[in-house]
């Protein structure tokens, strides 16, 4: 679960003295939204996003749909250094995916540059990289079936569920545990790598578990911070 294994290593970067059109071209060519800005020896000095580029464009540019040479010349003179976010928050390859998730949520950014101890850029982790990692963790890229089980909030309940699945010789893609509206209960969602769930369902019911109706359950059961 370390960033090292989930980040993009071949980072597309830009120099501080490049112009805005160059950045725009690179973003659209590679279908990305963040360009780390580096100097010699790959030292990170900033990051520029597609939003930074749009904000830098004067209104006249959009009015003339980019046709007016005079406006283009003016933009051409602007350097990345002038519009980038200098010294962005960075992480190291030994941060965990959980760190990155919390930090991205807190900072409200779309990507974090990854640097080594000397401040040299070694990768970038974007929301897209994290999504891919979570699709992998959930196992939903592989064929399987989701069970929805209601269990008592009690030590050993999970073991009983996993034991039952093991006895049926079914391999597990992932197990999500979520809070339930009843404080003494947990909703457990094993993603099973099989189509053959008839016996395991019956077995769980015989063990006293309730199979939840997925339509009556929603992921975010807790009161929200409005």
């Amino acid at each position: 679960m370390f960033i090292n294994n989930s980040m993009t290593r071949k980072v597309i970067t830009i120099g501080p003295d490049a112009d805005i059109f160059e950045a725009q071209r690179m973003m659209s060519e590679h279908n990305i939204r963040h360009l780390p800005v580096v100097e010699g020896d790959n030292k990170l000095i900033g990051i520029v996003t597609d939003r930074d580029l749009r904000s830098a464009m004067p209104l006249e540019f959009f009015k003339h749909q980019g046709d007016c040479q005079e406006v283009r010349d003016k933009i051409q003179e602007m350097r990345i250094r002038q519009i980038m976010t200098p010294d962005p928050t960075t992480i190291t390859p030994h941060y965990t995916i959980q760190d990155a998730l919390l930090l991205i949520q807190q900072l409200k950014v779309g990507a974090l540059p990854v640097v080594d101890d000397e401040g040299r850029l070694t990768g970038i982790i974007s929301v897209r990289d994290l999504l891919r990692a979570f699709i992998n963790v959930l196992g939903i890229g592989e064929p399987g079936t989701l069970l929805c089980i209601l269990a008592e909030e009690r030590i050993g309940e999970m073991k009983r569920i996993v034991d039952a699945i093991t006895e049926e010789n079914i391999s597990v893609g992932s197990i999500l545990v979520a809070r339930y509206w009843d404080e003494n209960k947990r909703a457990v969602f094993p993603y099973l790598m099989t189509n053959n769930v008839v016996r395991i369902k019956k077995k769980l019911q015989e063990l006293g578990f309730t199979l939840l109706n997925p339509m009556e359950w929603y992921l975010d059961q807790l009161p929200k911070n409005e």
Partner: protein
Amino acid sequence: MQKTGFVYDKRYQLHDTGDYHPEVAERLEAVYKGIEEAGLLPYLTLIPAVPAKPKWIEAVHEVAYIRRFEELCLCGRRTFDFPDNQMCCETYEVASLAVGGVLKAAEMMMKGEIDNAFCAVRPPGHHAEVNQAMGFCYFNNIAICARYLQQEWGIGRIGIFDFDVHHGNGTQHIFEEDATVLYYSVHEHPSFAFPGTGRAFEKGTGTGTGYTRNYPILPGQGDDAYDKMLKEDFVPAFDEFAPEVILVSAGFDAHEDDDMSGISLSTAGFSRIMKTVVELAERHAGGRLISVLEGGYSIRRLPELARDHIAILLGKDV
């Protein structure tokens, strides 16, 4: 009344899935029983299985995959690719007979000997990928039939309707770049049900964009959701595509008494689906329709489901 073919063969029961597997030989006995007890057998043209010519299986599956399947099967392996796919020494041969039975029905239909057909075959096919067995399926019967109709009989547009409760990932992937085959699947939503594909935004790729359509149904939604699907999405899509032949992946596992799903479709709901498909076949394809058994695991309910399915193909009131 229509001349309806019925592919049925005792040898389909030889595919042994071992202990505690829902895809069992008794399913076919239940299908037969329902049709026999309703007195429908005399109206049907019985079609026994024949092995498929290798070239037709190879029209869909990679040769290396076919050889791998045959070898593992003959050397006594009990599972193939995934633990779900339990098999025995006869499985390869039976899978080839399943394809052959479907192709025989298609041939008879094209020669005008029958109008339509129901193929009660095992093992099922719609999860089988070009090079991988999956979800109890080894050869993709319906996909091979589509290729056969195009290559042997020059059929242009083929509409495949898959109402098995699980998404037919194999069939979708085989035709996703192909604008000559419209693949339409209605199934339990992939966030809850096997195999986890068939989301509404999967619409085909490249020139095939728009010729794959997926209609996921949320758990417990049953008849109303299916009626809405038929009226608002399925019929308009098939009317626009105007298929020259309709193929049906007929899985009966969306039934309310089938433990394999949580959709809660009624027996009458299945009949409304099938009547709609038959009407479409009459409107666009001169009635040409081949229906192939996929899933459906309620031994108690399969007799009535098969009975009504066949009766609708015959053009009888249900």
